């Protein structure tokens, strides 16, 4: 098992390195620079000299190769650089935002898993039945809604019309504040998980070993408990891991809408302000987060499924 974890860790390193190189290249050709974004509100004024001085200060006047060398050198010591905007270490900024993003990502995945998986299960037990039809139509509909639109509707309904929940913000990090954004973010993975679970259960329902289990004289409940559930879970787990990626991606939209202080909103702000070190740092950390979550999922899958463990 340890060996398995270790191997998965090793596999993550080249990906991280490649991501680091890729985002460096991407953002070295991005038009505009931090200094000139500072006057776009039409209030501040900055002459060319000031812009140039600022660029020099950030090392943006250096040739690309030099900048890349500096960047890689810093990365090697796990230094993500200093934010142009706040002049603080990027680690510091990311550190402040990581927890809220993780809260949001985990909460929405929990929401998706706790509702989506049982729903898919129920749907699969009677394919073509009323539960199946209704839940699958709902799932496809959930997948077809633009996220921010859904978020706005949730705000409108649950905050403004019903007054049950706060419409925005992090508050003290309380659950009340977490509910609406997690639902808005969790609907799509919920729908996908419900569909995956349904398909997985249906597939396994027809598997030979389930027939064996029935031939042993097991009741359907036992079949599900002893044999079907765990096998379906392995398939569902993989989907959960991959869905984490899209949840973190979509969090950008939801965080902006709900004024949620996560990495996503930091990333969007930093992109528009051309605060390149923060952009790079955010993407690296998001990718790392995704890789770690997927590794955990793989480890979990390996615990359940011995075939993964030994392959």
């Amino acid at each position: 098992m340890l060996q398995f974890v270790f191997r998965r860790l090793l596999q993550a390193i080249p990906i991280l390195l490649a991501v680091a190189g890729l985002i460096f290249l991407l953002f070295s050709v991005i038009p505009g620079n931090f200094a000139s974004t500072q006057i776009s509100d039409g209030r501040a004024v900055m002459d060319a000299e000031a812009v140039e001085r600022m660029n020099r200060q950030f090392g943006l006047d250096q040739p690309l190769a030099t900048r890349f060398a500096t960047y890689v050198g810093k990365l090697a010591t796990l230094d993500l650089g200093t934010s142009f905007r706040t002049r603080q270490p990027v680690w510091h900024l990311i550190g402040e935002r990581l927890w809220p993003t993780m809260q949001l990502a985990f909460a929405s995945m929990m929401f998706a898993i706790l509702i989506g998986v049982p729903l898919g299960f129920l749907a699969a037990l009677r394919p073509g039945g009323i539960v199946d039809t209704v839940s699958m139509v709902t799932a496809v509909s959930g997948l077809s809604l633009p996220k921010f639109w859904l978020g706005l509707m949730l705000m409108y309904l649950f905050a403004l019309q019903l007054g049950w929940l706060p419409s925005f913000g992090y508050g003290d990090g309380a659950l009340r504040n977490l509910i609406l954004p997690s639902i808005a973010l969790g609907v799509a993975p919920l729908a996908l998980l419900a569909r995956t679970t349904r398909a997985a259960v249906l597939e396994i329902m027809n598997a030979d070993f389930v027939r064996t289990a029935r031939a042993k004289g097991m009741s359907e409940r036992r079949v599900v408990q002893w044999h079907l559930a765990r096998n379906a879970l392995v398939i569902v787990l993989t989907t959960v891991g991959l869905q984490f990626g899209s949840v973190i991606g979509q969090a950008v939209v939801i965080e902006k809408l709900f004024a949620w202080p996560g990495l996503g909103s930091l990333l969007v702000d930093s992109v528009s302000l051309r605060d390149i070190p923060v952009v790079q740092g955010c993407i690296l950390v998001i990718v790392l987060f995704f890789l770690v979550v997927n590794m955990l999922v793989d480890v979990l899958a390996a615990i359940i499924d011995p075939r993964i463990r030994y392959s």
Partner: protein
Amino acid sequence: MKLRANLVIGGALFATVVVAGALAPFLAHTDPVMDANLMNAEVAPGSEFWFGTDAQGRDIYSRVLYGARISLTVGIVSQLINTVIGVCLGLSAAYWGGWWDDFVNGLTNLMLAIPSLIFALAIMAILTPGLTSLLIALGLTNWSYTCRLSRASALSLKSQGYVQAAKVLGYGDIRIMLTQILPNILGPIIVIGTLGMGGAVLAEASLSFLGLGIRPPFPSWGSMLSDARDQITTAPWISIFPGLAIFMTVLGLNLLGDGLRDILDPQSRARTA
């Protein structure tokens, strides 16, 4: 039975959108860009303006029709790019193997690790906002599933008799890939492509919300929806109709994809659901 319902409803929704887009110049009442008329700003839906008008006094019905062209272009072209990239990489990796296979595998893992919306956002920030940029951004960031799938299917086909036979006959690698392998793995790829089209339409809306979508003169549904978001409480029709159009299109594509999967790819239901 249920399978048919998926296909029929999904196909009908999608066909409606295609027809609406294709016939937009005939069906539309006004030009979607030039006919801003501030005297008609924010008229509620009625007999003159079926879907009402927006803040600039443009006919939303006409704009939604023209918007179908943009959304379809976004969906179809970006998915074509994704599919071509994914299939080329996947097929060649499976066929040639070796370092090329390792490279493609690494690239695929890399693409999977960066959330596609974030990747697209980065590309949109680098290119200036616009249709072409959007097609590139969405076309370059979603091919990993297609690639994985075509690689896996091609690997299993590679050792089959008829492929080996084609090799013995001295067919070129490319020819074998295109004539012997590709036709046999097309089904699942079409399914992924169809579902991906819906995803692209939604991604366009998300990018518009983040201020990095398609900008005028194109009336894209995403930008219409995003622009109208603070009017939700006052003039809801401005956002409801483009929102419905997105919903219908994506729903249609998802149902169509499901239906196609039941026909074209009955085995792999679980894996790509």
